[in-house]
């Protein structure tokens, strides 16, 4: 029987190792001729919105503004070369500013202002920020017309660089044309000049309110709403919201007369102070805090919803439930008050 030869010379070993090496070389060289797996930058991808006109003083988030096309994710987006319309650099777009961001989700169930504030924090970020991987844009509320080029100025131009392992591509001359602040909605300010166009706004709901002297149902034109920030010299502003009602002679109406109002759940505010002239709450701004439908907001969650109501016996003894309401939003912190002024006739609170 044959046995293993102890004096094996290395010739077959060399042959075999040469072959193995050759095979490994062949297989590894194959890799080189094959395309590497990479992401794609698609030639059909593009921004679907070229002109961005955020309103200053409030956080605006543009999503779904990029058509993905054949680009594959993950990809990286970057704002490059932001500049004023005349070509000058725009440091206000590249510098970072303290902005208020959400850490935890707002639910509408918070029990105090502190609880809401604990969900937010100050971070230093650029005021006009791009979503790093999505290409979306965010204009933070800290951007003000005091240092931004707001309309009617023609604003800024910027480019976006899209890159991934498949290459890079530039989307040029996107336009940012911020509008001046309108600190509350509904607004009586002109969008581009920032100047008021009327004294007040009209309420959202006026229903079954009978005029005291004319004995007709009051309509939207009979009531004017003033939303205004109260700044008292020497007093540190707190975040509060006050509701007042004025009669035709600008005398205060006792809010308690709106007897069936759900005062405790009127707004997402706390520490209600009710006098015979006004109702005040401690609140967190902006109102509504986020665009989330809660019991304090309209169905889409974009406006806070207040409803004042009272009930009286009308002609013939039927109950009439009168409602006065406003859907509003306030973006700036401070001591705000909303005044409902009855212009042509006072409401009738007594029974017929």
């Amino acid at each position, binding site marked *: 029987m044959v046995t293993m030869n102890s004096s094996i*010379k290395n010739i077959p070993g060399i*042959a075999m190792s040469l072959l193995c090496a050759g095979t490994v070389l062949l297989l590894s060289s194959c890799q080189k001729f094959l395309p590497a797996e990479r992401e*794609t930058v698609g030639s059909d991808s593009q921004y679907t919105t070229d002109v961005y006109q955020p309103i200053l003083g409030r*956080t605006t988030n543009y999503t779904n503004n990029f058509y993905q096309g054949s680009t594959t*994710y993950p990809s990286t987006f970057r704002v490059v070369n932001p500049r004023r319309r005349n070509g000058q650099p725009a440091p206000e777009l590249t510098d970072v500013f303290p902005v208020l961001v959400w850490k*935890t*989700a*707002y639910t509408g169930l918070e029990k105090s202002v502190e609880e809401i504030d604990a969900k937010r924090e100050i971070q230093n970020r650029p005021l006009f920020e791009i979503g790093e*991987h999505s290409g979306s844009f965010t204009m933070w509320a800290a951007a003000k017309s005091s240092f931004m080029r707001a309309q009617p100025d023609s604003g800024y131009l910027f480019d976006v660089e899209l890159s991934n392992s498949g290459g890079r591509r530039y989307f040029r001359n996107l336009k940012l044309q911020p509008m001046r602040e309108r600190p509350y909605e509904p607004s009586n300010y002109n969008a581009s000049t920032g100047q008021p166009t009327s004294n007040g706004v009209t309420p959202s709901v006026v229903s079954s309110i009978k005029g005291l002297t004319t004995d007709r149902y009051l309509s939207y034109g009979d009531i004017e709403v003033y939303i205004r920030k109260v700044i008292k010299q020497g007093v540190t502003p707190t975040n509060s919201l006050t509701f007042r009602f004025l009669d035709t002679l600008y005398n205060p109406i006792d809010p308690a007369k709106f007897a069936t109002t759900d005062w405790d759940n009127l707004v997402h505010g706390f520490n209600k102070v009710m006098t015979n002239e006004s109702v005040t709450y401690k609140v967190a701004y902006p109102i509504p805090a986020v665009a989330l439908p809660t019991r304090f907001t309209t169905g889409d969650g974009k406006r806070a919803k207040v409803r004042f109501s009272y009930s009286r016996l009308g002609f013939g003894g039927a109950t009439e439930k009168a409602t006065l309401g406003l859907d509003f939003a306030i973006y700036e912190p401070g001591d705000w008050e909303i005044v409902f002024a009855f212009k042509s006739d006072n409401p009738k609170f007594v029974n017929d």
Partner: protein
Amino acid sequence: MYRIKKQKLIGMRLLSFITALILVTSFGNMGYAQNKITVRGVVKDQAQQTLLAGVSISTAKPQKTIAATDSKGAFTVLVDAGSELVFTYAGYTPIRKTFLSSVSGVEISISPNNNSMQEVVVQGFKTKTRETSTGSSLVLSGKALQDVPVSNVMELLQGKVAGLNIQNNSGSPGGMGTINIRGLSGSTVSADGFLTPTSPLFVIDGVPVDMNSNFEYGFQGGGAGISPLSLIPPEDIEQMDVLKDAAATSQYGARAAYGVIIVTTKRGKSKVPIVQYSTNVFVKTPPKLRETIGGKEERAFRINSILQYDTSYQHALSLINSTPFLSDSLNPYYNNATNWQDYFFRNTYNQQHNMSIRGGDDKFNYKTNLNYYQENGIIQNTGFKRYSLSMNALYAPSQQFRMTVNLSSSLGQKKNGSGVGLVQTGVASSANSSSLLPPPSLFSDNNSALATANVVNNNKTINISSSWDMQYEPVKGVRFGNLLSYNLVTGSSDRFTPSYLSGGTSEAYSSNDRNYTIYDRTMLSLTKTLNRVHNLSGYVFNEINATSFRPNVIQLSQTASDQITGPIGYSWANTLGGTLNSLNETRQHGYGGSFSYNYDRKYVLDFNFRLDGLSTTGAKQPYSNNPSVSARWNFGKEKWMEKYDWLSYGSLKASWGRNIKPTGNIFDTYGRYNVGLPYNNNPTVSIDYGTIPNEHFLPETQTQSNVGIETGLFGDMVNFTMEGYYRSVDNQVMGIDLSNTSGFSKMNTNAKSIVNYGMEWTTTVRVFKPTNPFKWTVSANGSMNRDILAKLPDGLRQITQTISDGGSNVPIVYRLGRNVFSNLLYYTQGVYANTENVPVNMATGLRQALSTTSGYLSFQAGDPRWTDVNGDYIIDEKDLLPIGNPVPRFVGGFASQMEYKRFQLNMNWSFTLDRDLLNASFAQMMQNFAKPATMSALVPIDKYNYWKPTVPGEKLGGGTVNARYPNPFDFLRAEQLQPYRSNQTLFLEDGSYWKLNNVVLIYNVDRKMLTRLHMTSCKLTLTANNVLTISKYTGPDPEMVTQLGRDNSGGYPNARSYAAGINVQF
């Protein structure tokens, strides 16, 4: 009187040598040499000690056959004293023996030829010994395939050949799994999720059979669902050759791009006719079935989840009360605990019989084989029967003329139940029914269950194939040959669904198809040896091939009654019929040549070249060139290797070559006209603007390089083969959409390429010396393969294709540089234990949300945590990623063959490793929990780690930390959220498995007993098939998945079978 003990070693690198003692008695001396002597004795198989009939006995000088052993293995010859006698038997090592004087009772033991270098391999159109073959191929003896009864012989090849990936992904009797040589060959996936099959070309006794061209069989509706492979009786197979690289397959050119498997049936080789009968009786048992929750428990589950997750208690009560099967629990219709799966699955008893008669010698031999196979499927109303009759004959009156004729016919009969071919969707949907429903009856709602058992269906496939091979050598070294073959496959299918089973609408479906192939090859070959060491050979050939396929279908809807199924009285408006548009006719013409040179069988060099023209190729370049070149160096034969006597043989080989495969059809090349409505009573003909003709259309091309080493060590006790390959499959068809200004909407182009590269290993070890009565052979093989997508049309780097496979419906992604296709999935990172864990958008203060058709749905506790790839806090289609590779990286197997005296124990293992499966059926099962008011089956859920709230009923609070599965019960949100959607990595699992394919115990009956029974051999076998699968995969069977790696319900499970067999020879 004296005895001579003589032992002789035959051959230089012979593994086996003769161990028997030959007793020769001599009375005289050499002076008696010229006298005639009589030698009497028997010849037997050295290993099995059985007597061999038909062993040729010839004198060495002059070489002349003088006798053969009779049916009892005995012989008597009268020769000159001192003559050397040669005992030869096909497949055995010849024995030479010198006799000096008359003797009787001589016992000659011959043993099977184990010398792997002398194995006959078929490559190209020629048979060669392995030491001169340059291509990559592997020979499998038919013996390994004959002890396990299966309907399709390819099932047994799993794990036996390195680089051959067989997945038995349908247990449907008479069906076919998937066969791939060296990785994925194609990348075309149909809209319903089937990968266009890329089975190798089969050449059965010279008849090429393409398993891919009419893949309607067994896959997509219609057809009889019988694979042509199932019509080959395994008992009749002598040898299978698996040709892998381009050099080996080069001469099969026009269809050989996916490899070639050559099946050679048995031939007569014994002067004394051999009658052989074998039978197997076997039991098939269904695999372990899915556990379900039954009866009262199911109802309680449903009511509980409604009470916990409905918007309010009142609404929950009203939902329960308005759902009769929940509230009306005492109604006998709803008061059940039906185990639906029991109604479909069963144990079956099956049998097969095979009888063959063969005999003859070199000049004339014949064989006739008769086969019957019957298998009842483990699903009700399914089954397969095969009847086959085949014969072959060889006539070679002289060295110069030789003629071989093969004729075989087979009939397959199949019952598909309510399914078609591979798919059993009826069973799947019924088995998914609520256990509260009553068992199937005429009055129950669940008709698909009853339909499975009662639909009348009968599918038949008839295959007739014949080949006629003639060779003539007018001058020595010059040989003319012609091979003509004809193959006809015709199938028919009849199905009748009575009206009470299909909502009052009866349906009669009937189809027939016919597929023929004519093949003819003429060749002229030359052989010359110069100076005894320069061996030259070459041939030129010309071949034609014509195929045609024509399927017709008629589907009568609403027949007159359940008894009268036609021909009148049906609803003509709903009735369809005619020839299907998959009909085709293809012509192929090829010519070429081959030249082979070897120096003393040490250095071998082969060149092949062929030109192929196809009727489906564009008119601009109808012919394609397919060259191949290959070489082999038998370094073991070198002088300087002689001192290493531990090396029995050693060789290196390398090859490069190209083949094509016809793809597409004639319409892709030449366009199509439509017959329109009549105009002025004249028929109109218009251009079909669907697909523009592409006159540059090319066949699919495969280019492959191969390097390999083969060694035999320690007297051939250890064989080792290693090969590496690099293959690209180019010009794959892909339809591209055209701009609307072209007038046409689509063009089929040759725009896709894939590349496979990998390595293969095969080792065989004979553990003990041949003299040891205990013999143990262990062989192992494995292959590592990578598939890369190398080219896409229009410079694209990624293409997504939607798939509606009725299961996962997950799109696939073709991405350049990646494995050929991947799933488009959400990446699941776990489950949100608390609502606070959900990321919050800094700018909007809102939680991450899912984009749904009706707006955004914020995530909360118990929801799956999907990766937000683009960071926009919205989960939508932009966050889908290409993930997973369904093609295994490693496949292979182990075989162990133990032999002790008369007993033999064989075991076969196979493995498939490193692939990703999408467990879509599990996803669907879990989705049922979110449909408490829908009647579907519920599975026991306790063993799964799913999210549960800390406080029952508390929706936004905390819950299970590190849960693997999301909350299955929140049925109101589930409609939008679909937490158990199948397109997420939560259901992507490792699909590796190890499988004990079969265990065979063989006993060869003792010779004394055989003599008494007048038999020459008798073999008893016990077999277990599909014994065990070891896998981490959580689904029922990691093999039962589609080629895209999806475990959709609706497959036909693989049965386990136990067989007892007997094989006798007279």
